[in-house]
């Protein structure tokens, strides 16, 4: 675009894109393993990621063996990283990724070209917007995602509405209720396009306690209102028009990996997860790049992402020492069952190497109760029966390979 751009050139050993849970976990672990120069690049003015805006429990059980609020947890993660000597570059956006572990950065004052030995992508997820969900109707103010709601409420004490409707019934939708309660906002209903809530069934009584009616199998959702939301209309499970008065809409869940950077890069994106395709070591199709945390597209809890980050750091350490997995021959992993939406990792590198992810993650489109086969073009890697409805994701141990 602009050929005369002047970049300040910098170098480091490992550059981490995104200072959320996963990024800080990777960085801290790399320092523990004595990696020299570890830099976390975060576009917000603070590291911490999504938990920073979560004034609710539970966070930190696995990492610190105690119940923490998200905000306190994020602070701890930051403190740990600092103490271990991680360099935190905040207010700095990664604007482009280039081959061979090279990043273009934009800080408040300058543009930087950062050359690293390895890069880790940990940019997390965001919720699908109203448009992505093809929700029709007017375009008043007061239609926001849970993420936006949380930031508004916790960071700025803004109150976008009083009696909103929640669209979606995932974990995050339930956390929206908590967020609302914080400011005395009372949701008037939860509506879901599927025929079941998207969390374990034990959550349903919570709605009952909170006196929030639940509508399942709704379709043709329409938002009405001129400048602010007035009502929401939809077809209910029996196909009848239903209208609920409300002054706001929370669009919750349907997480999508934050892959803006990957879209115009040389790195492969997986159609199933919409995140980067990785091999069993967590490497992208340019093997100087790793990816971990929610960017992989499985929408996990923070504790899970932390743990994954630690494991990824260990593998990067091995990689930098030149041990373990020298092989760069990637073969594509497949599972042809129509109920399977995604499979992580998407590739298998050979030779297999000692250090690798312990599990496959499988996402489902629809309920399943049959045998599935995971294979490369040459070999069957795993075979077994799965019985599940489409929740968050399933885990299968990755078997030992020759």
């Amino acid at each position, binding site marked *: *675009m*602009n050929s005369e*751009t002047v970049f300040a050139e910098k170098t480091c050993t490992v550059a981490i894109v995104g200072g959320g849970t996963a990024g800080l976990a990777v960085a801290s672990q790399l320092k523990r393993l004595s990696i020299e120069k570890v830099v976390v690049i975060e*576009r917000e*003015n603070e590291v911490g990621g999504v938990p920073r805006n979560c004034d609710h429990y539970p966070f930190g059980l696995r990492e610190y063996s105690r119940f923490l609020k998200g905000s306190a947890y994020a602070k701890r993660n930051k403190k740990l990283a600092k103490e271990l000597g991680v360099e935190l570059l905040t*207010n700095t*956006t990664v*604007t482009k990724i280039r081959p061979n572990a090279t990043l273009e950065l*934009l800080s*408040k*004052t*300058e*543009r930087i070209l950062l050359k690293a030995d390895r890069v880790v992508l940990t940019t997390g997820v*965001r*919720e699908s*917007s*109203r*448009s*992505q969900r*093809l*929700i*029709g*109707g*007017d*375009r008043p*103010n007061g239609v*926001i*995602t849970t*993420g*936006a709601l949380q*930031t*508004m409420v916790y*960071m*700025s*004490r*803004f*109150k*976008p*509405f*009083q009696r909103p409707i929640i669209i979606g019934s995932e974990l995050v939708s339930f956390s929206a209720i908590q967020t609302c309660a914080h400011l005395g906002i009372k949701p008037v209903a939860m509506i879901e396009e599927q025929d079941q809530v998207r969390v374990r069934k034990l959550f349903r009584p919570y709605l009952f306690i909170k006196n929030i009616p639940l509508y399942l199998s709704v379709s*043709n*959702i*329409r938002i*009405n209102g*001129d*400048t*602010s939301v007035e009502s929401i209309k939809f077809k209910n499970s029996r196909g009848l028009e239903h209208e609920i008065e409300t002054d706001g809409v929370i669009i919750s869940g349907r997480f*999508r990996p*934050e892959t*803006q950077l990957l*879209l*115009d890069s040389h790195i492969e994106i997986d*159609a199933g997860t*919409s995140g980067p395709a990785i091999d069993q070591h967590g490497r992208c199709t340019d093997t100087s790049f790793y990816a971990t945390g929610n960017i992989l597209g499985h929408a996990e809890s923070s504790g899970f992402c932390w743990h994954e980050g630690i494991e990824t750091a260990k593998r990067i350490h091995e990689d930098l020492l030149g041990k373990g997995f020298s092989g760069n021959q990637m073969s594509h992993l497949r599972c042809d069952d129509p109920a399977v939406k995604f499979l992580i990792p998407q590739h298998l590198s050979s030779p297999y190497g000692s250090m690798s992810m312990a599990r496959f993650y499988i996402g489902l489109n629809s309920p399943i109760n049959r045998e599935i086969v995971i294979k490369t073009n040459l070999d069957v890697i795993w075979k077994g029966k799965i019985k599940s409805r489409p929740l968050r994701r399933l885990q299968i141990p990755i078997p030992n390979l020759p």
Partner: protein
Amino acid sequence: MPSNKHDIAIVGAGVVGCALARRLTLDGASVIVLEKAYDVLDGASKGNSAILHTGFDAPSGSLELDCIKSGYNEYLEVSESLSLPILKSGALVLAWDSEQLKVLPKLIEKAHENGIFNVRPLDREEILRREPELSRELLGGFEVPGEYIIDPWASANAYIGQAVENGANLWRGVEVLSGNFEQNYWTLETSTEKVYSRYLINCGGLYGDLLDERLIKKKNFTITPRKGQFVIFDKAASSLVSSTVLPIPTATTKGVVICRTIFGNLLVGPTAEDQESRRNIATDSSTLVKLCKKGSTIIPKLENYDITSSYAGLRPATQYSDYQIHHKTEMAYLTVGGIRSTGLSAALGIANYVSKMLSEMGFQFSPQKNPKLPEVDKLSEYHERDWQIPGADGVVCHCEMVTKREIERVINGPIPPQTIQGLKRRTRVAMGRCQGFYCSAELAKITNGKLKIPLICNE
């Protein structure tokens, strides 16, 4: 005679009113623009396909064709000085069945008749070579190299910006209720104070007929709003096609287009749905689904791409196919209405036409010698953006890479936006993939106390 009298009052700050305000101000008239919405571009001009049309398919011999052609030429002329971005995409008009294939020669002939001589037929293979992602169902088509993509809002903002910079008054949130022409001047009753002018122009767009009734007690035409819904795909999808893909136009519509936007996305739309309401720009989820399907029959790979946003716009259609420009000389009154589906391209041409008309009627002024230029930010993905220039003070909207400096410049500018939609149209903030997931809170903070309709409930 009241002392605060203007030469010309323009009712309506859509793209047409804005272009007229600029032209007549530069001509030397003292101009006041009255807009009932809190911001400019809140009517028909709010949502369109943003194509700078050549007029290749306009009715031959129509006023519309004349205005499109002169508007097109002036647009290219002023684009540099007004900082208006252009994406020189060119267009392909494509036939997908044998009936459509038969119509092509006639359309090419018409284009030539309209003076667009570089329109020429292309065979199927040539088209597929240029646009390899198009469906193989394609039968043939022709190219219109001069159809370009522009920023639908920056243009009108630049027109009104230049008008204001050079002395025009813009009153927003002021509705014209009625008017009286006596002793050779107009007295307008508005929702706020009275306004006086020697001449009055109705650029009421979707309300043009109602405004005629209010002001001259006569309807020149009847508006039947025609809704067009759009789906905007993620930026990644913009690599699927480089030309604008047009269908064979029909009598009522140009049909569903697939084109890139100047902001780097890919657009599919619009539909054409007649309706009563002049306000209702609601989208309908089943129609949006249909548009997505339509898109992927033309470009199969589109199926794999995410949607960034969806919206609808209303065309001020009348019972006539041509523009409705009527003057009532004895009342110093002009209606510029029924600018249906080409107003963005034709606005500057319409303004020239009206300027000439006024001067022929004896409204002559002394043109401004060195008119000032407004400051306009280029928001085009295909040009340098503010964040790429040092000192941007951080990025607020990460999806569209909108800087704090840009937002503050607009908020503190000569025509500060008064609604979040106005701010979005002028900066692109929150218009990207996340639609505010990350920046809503920051935006609420930055705009607190500055918008007529705040983002938050008052505490």
